[in-house]
């Protein structure tokens, strides 16, 4: 019966908790001793901690207060749920949520499936893998604003390349960003092209971790390409797929840059107004920080649920 081995982290912890064997313990309590022992680490950490505290944690705490406060003629007062009421009564509120959810769903259909298919194709190729990996990842390296403006030119109904191509092959020209029914899809296509490189590389790494024997066994059982994908690839990458799905949902729910630059934010008849664009409008165009914070809080609650699921899945993967 050997004692169960400690995990590295536990071992490290137990080593630190024991007094050093080569002398008496330094004066002071265990906290002071631990502080002295880790002085260098604390010194290096203090910068990051202060930056996080000032620029990330403090604004988060302030947002909670702001969501229930109102400033009038310089006087700050507590207004309970008034800001939430203002937000709920805004005619653009439900439209913004609908648009955001539509963007999320479309972004999952395209932004989730396309990188996976691209990764599958690259993984199956015998030559030019490195070149294709670079090609797929290149758009991620473009500044988002530059990439979006590139699409703005492509979509332009007057001189845009897309309509030129459509015209050349005999297809009817489209009002890409100016048709309320097409505008969100156009935004999603631009967003997918800009962001799929990172996801494709993650999928590719996951695919390369699948043992070849599984595919050989499937082939011996007479499985074709699609059945191999369905019965081997997807089950083997299920966890990565789930994590990526959640990360995509969290990221796409916060979409702002693409509609802001492509359609001016609201889009035709408000068809691309998103929740984060509405928050931006409240704060920086209407000077209503209370309403902006209240809407931000609603978004936070929703995303916190997804984040909790993400953490749970991450733990499952660790185990």
């Amino acid at each position, binding site marked *: 019966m050997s004692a169960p081995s400690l995990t590295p982290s536990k071992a490290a912890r137990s080593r630190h908790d024991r007094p050093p064997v080569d002398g008496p313990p330094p004066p002071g309590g265990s906290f002071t001793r631990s502080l002295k022992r880790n*002085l*260098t680490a604390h*010194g*290096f950490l*203090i*910068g990051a901690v*202060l*930056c996080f505290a*000032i*620029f990330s944690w403090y604004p988060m705490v302030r947002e909670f207060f702001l969501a229930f406060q109102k*400033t*009038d*003629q*310089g*006087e700050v007062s507590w207004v309970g749920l008034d800001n939430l009421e*203002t937000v709920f*009564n*805004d*005619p*653009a509120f439900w439209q913004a949520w609908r648009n955001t959810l539509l963007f999320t769903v479309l972004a999952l259909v395209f932004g989730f499936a396309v990188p996976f298919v691209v990764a599958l194709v690259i993984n199956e190729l015998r030559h030019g893998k490195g070149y294709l990996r670079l090609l797929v990842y290149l758009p991620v390296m473009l500044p988002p604003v530059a990439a979006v403006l590139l699409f703005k030119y492509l979509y*332009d*109904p*007057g*001189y845009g390349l897309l309509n030129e191509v459509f015209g050349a092959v005999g297809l009817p020209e489209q*009002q890409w*960003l*100016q*048709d*309320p029914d097409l505008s969100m899809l156009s935004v999603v296509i631009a967003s997918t092209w800009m962001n799929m490189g990172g996801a494709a590389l993650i999928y590719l790494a996951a695919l390369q971790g699948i043992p070849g024997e599984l595919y050989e066994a499937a082939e011996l059982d007479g499985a074709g390409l699609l059945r191999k994908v369905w019965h081997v690839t997807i089950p083997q990458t299920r966890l990565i797929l789930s994590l990526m799905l959640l990360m995509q949902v969290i990221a796409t729910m916060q979409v702002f840059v693409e509609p802001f630059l492509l*359609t*001016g*934010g*609201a*889009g*035709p*008849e*408000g068809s691309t107004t998103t929740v984060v664009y509405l928050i*931006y*409008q409240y*704060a*920086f*165009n*209407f*000077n209503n*920080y209370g309403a902006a914070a209240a809407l931000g809080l609603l978004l936070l609650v929703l995303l916190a649920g997804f984040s909790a699921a993400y953490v749970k899945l991450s733990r499952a993967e660790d185990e």
Partner: protein
Amino acid sequence: MRSARFRRTRRAGAITLVSALTLTALAACGTSSSDDGGGSEGGSGSSDPAAPLDPKTKVTITIDCMPPAAKAAELKEWKEDVKEFNKTYPNVTIEGRSTPGQCLEPPRFTAMLKAKSQPDVFYTYFTDLPQVLDNDGAEDITAYVNDRTVPALKDIDPNVLGSLKHENRLYGLPTSNYTMGLLINRKLFEEAGLDPDAPPRTWEEVRTAAKKIAGLGDGIAGFGEYSAGNTGGWHFTAQMYSLGGQVVDASGKKAAFNDELGKQVAENLHAMRWEDQSMGKTQLLKWGDLQKQIATDKLGMFLAAPDDITYMVQQLGADYENFGMGPIPGEKNTLAGGNNYVIKKGISADKIKAGIAWLNFQNLTVGKGQFDWARKKTDKLPVGLPQPNFWLNESKKKDDAARIEHATMPVENFKTFMDNPVPGMAEPPKAQEVYKVLDNVMSGILTNEDADIDKLLSTAEQQVDQVLATQ
């Protein structure tokens, strides 16, 4: 032992270095705002607002919108003005702050007010006053502004001064004003067989002219409109005013555009866009887009203020000769606005007096500062635009004469605009929120051939009523 001491010393050194760098970085991250309350460096001056600034009191004031280095001629004039001002007020130090690009961008301005990091004397649009007061950012300068501190006060258009008042208290001094008119591209007018010296005066004439200009082909649009970034609602409002309508009723609580006039505005735009095809295919445009189009001879006309021309010449390389202006079609009323300077709340009485003295010298004295047209001509800056022009009486006569005498552009191009002044109307309450709703009306009309105008207007009416109900 020595190595242990060396390790400790090295560790302490590393910690010191990291901490110092952190504190430096954090200090750099912070915004410096001018001191509140204090600021007089010598003597104590007089706290009596009516008393003039004590010449023995040394004062330093910060002011934004100093021209950036890219605007070399304007910056040169600013420095000359400071020098000239210091001959009368050697005790006042002017610390100018400049911003590359647009001096006032609403999102940045809103954030600045929230952080209370505005300079002692800061630039705003007329419509920003409620927001500034909400943030407790403006000093009441009623007691400081009189015929002694601002000698030309009686000659400033009361409508302009009215834009800077709240409950009869004065909170700012104007630097410029504008009323919207119809800006035309003279070259395209001539090519289309239209008279550039007689811009359209009614919306029917606009429609006819737009059709002719669009007939030139090559992607040229006859008339352009905004429909994004809240600027669509802004121009819908201007068009309503031009026909004698309103977007919000007199009580400020109800939408007032869902009527025959609103329908007329919407139907006219829809017909120009879809029946005449005279407004171009590219829509969802916002401020800056139409200026680029007209500067590159791709657009015949749009509603604008005269200072748009300065932007197009200085930033887009267009020629003054290429533009002309007429009054807003319809001519019942036009949308009026402008820019001004506000004094930061809480600064010392001496600083307030110094700020007002500077504003009076640079912005409110005929023949000086911004109204020194002879110098502007020498420096090859635009002279001859019809605005800013908030003067009345003798000041107006004097300034108009100097403007014509030193003109650097064909002032006759703006004759129709100058000879037919249209009464200016202020923007509606909760302007930006109302404009956001009306953007949907404009984008609906201009992007959807099958747009249901009645539905667009009634939906917008309900939404504006909701917006106004939460004041």
